[in-house]
């Protein structure tokens, strides 16, 4: 996947030219100071924002709008409040013209995978934050995208639920017949190091990829957080972001 020469934003140029490849089945995190344009970059890849200049290529093809080949997980989950869990998860399949039977069979498979059994007919407002997140994840996965674009999907969860959800996400991701490629936007370096194979570090104004770091740790990572090198890797990435983050903070205070 390439992403090049895109400049967006009405008043501020949010992004500079950005170019990176993601290997198939790779879990890549995108971290950076707030306002660096990481969410914008994700929205461009999703086809929800058109870059003012440049083009976005996915597998050599230009992205011209949103499409089911790129599944998106939103920070606020964006579940349809009027649809049950089952209907939410089968919506993408409905959009793509599958029959009701096929839709429900496939949706049930993913309800199993995210462990929402028994909640099929519940509405989103009846679910906890973690369950909503799993429902949103199942909705995207049921659509069988080539890449998952996740925009701070755990930012709205409390710390404990987040930790559990991180393990859930890794389990769901590694369980499938083929691992999905994931591009994961987060402001949490810890989350990036814990989850991903590779970490892209962005700088701000304009957003550029400043560093491309391969994760040191083997999977599974249950013990990783207590590993002595863990803190070091986080420190190293924080070192890259720190100045920009401080800058962003003072800019906000002005």
């Amino acid at each position, binding site marked *: 996947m390439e992403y090049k020469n895109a400049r967006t934003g009405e008043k501020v140029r949010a992004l500079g030219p950005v170019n990176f490849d993601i290997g198939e089945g790779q879990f890549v995190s995108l971290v950076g100071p707030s306002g660096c344009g990481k969410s914008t970059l994700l929205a461009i890849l*999703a*086809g*929800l924002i058109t870059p003012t200049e440049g083009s976005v290529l996915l597998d050599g093809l230009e992205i011209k*709008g*949103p*499409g*089911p080949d*790129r*599944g*998106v997980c*939103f920070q*606020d989950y*964006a*579940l*349809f*409040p*009027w*649809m049950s869990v089952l209907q939410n998860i089968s*919506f*993408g399949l*409905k*959009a*793509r013209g599958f029959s009701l039977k096929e839709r429900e069979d496939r949706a049930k498979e993913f309800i199993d995978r995210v462990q929402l059994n028994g909640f099929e007919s519940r*509405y*989103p*407002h009846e679910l906890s934050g973690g369950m909503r997140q799993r429902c949103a994840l199942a*909705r*995207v996965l049921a*659509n069988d995208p080539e890449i998952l674009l996740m925009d701070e999907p755990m930012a709205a969860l409390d710390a404990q639920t987040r930790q559990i959800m991180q393990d859930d996400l890794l389990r769901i991701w590694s369980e499938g017949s083929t691992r999905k490629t994931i591009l994961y936007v987060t402001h949490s370096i810890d989350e990036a190091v814990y989850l991903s194979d590779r970490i892209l570090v962005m700088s701000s104004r304009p957003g550029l990829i400043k560093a491309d770091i391969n994760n040191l740790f083997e999977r599974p990572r249950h013990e990783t957080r207590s590993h002595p090198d863990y803190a070091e890797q986080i420190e190293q990435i924080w070192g890259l972001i720190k100045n920009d983050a401080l800058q962003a903070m003072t800019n906000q205070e002005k």
Partner: protein
Amino acid sequence: MAVSTGTIFPTPTGVLNGFGELILSGELPKSILESVGRICGGFSIAFTLAVCSALLVGLWHPAEYLLDPLIETFRPIAPIAWIPLAILWFGTGTYAAIFIVSYAVFFPVFLNTLSGIRAVDKGLVNAARTLGASPLLIIKDVIIPSALPSIILGARLGMGVGWAAIIAAEMTVGSKSGGGASGGIGQMMFIFLTYSLELRYIIVGMITVGVIALLIDILFRRIEKMLLPWTD
């Protein structure tokens, strides 16, 4: 004194008896059926038109520029202001009444539906787009369900003004036709005012209007609960 105090200031028992008398004579049931039928007709026409035009205005910019100013110009013109034209165009019967009701119902349904459509969460539309939904499916499965609470609110308000309008229309149309022909609760009330001065019967009419409006609103709330199990 030709008029007894019982006529000008009806007693509660007089009104109660009035109910019995008018039901037995068949006059009240017939008038109710007539008015309710007109309300249903006028409401259906207006509701369909209003929801369709709100979708058009809310989702398609050229329609916003063309239709919105037009609708806003007509909105301040009260339904009863149309009665002279309605009588000339449609006569003094059911069609004129339906026209007046439709006109009255249109605006609250249109405005509420439009505000519902405009309040649709962009994030949900985007989510549907990334899942591969066509614009048509987005309208059907995202925009309309999302606007449904506003549409139902508009329908309830529309029903209220529809009732107000039909009684006014029937009373006026009744005065024109000289009684008899066109019917409805409003005309029944008008006839009792001009021909027999039976105020008890007029009060029977007023109470009937209130009670039926209440029953219809209860029905709407039931429908609301049924259609919107996902709210609260």
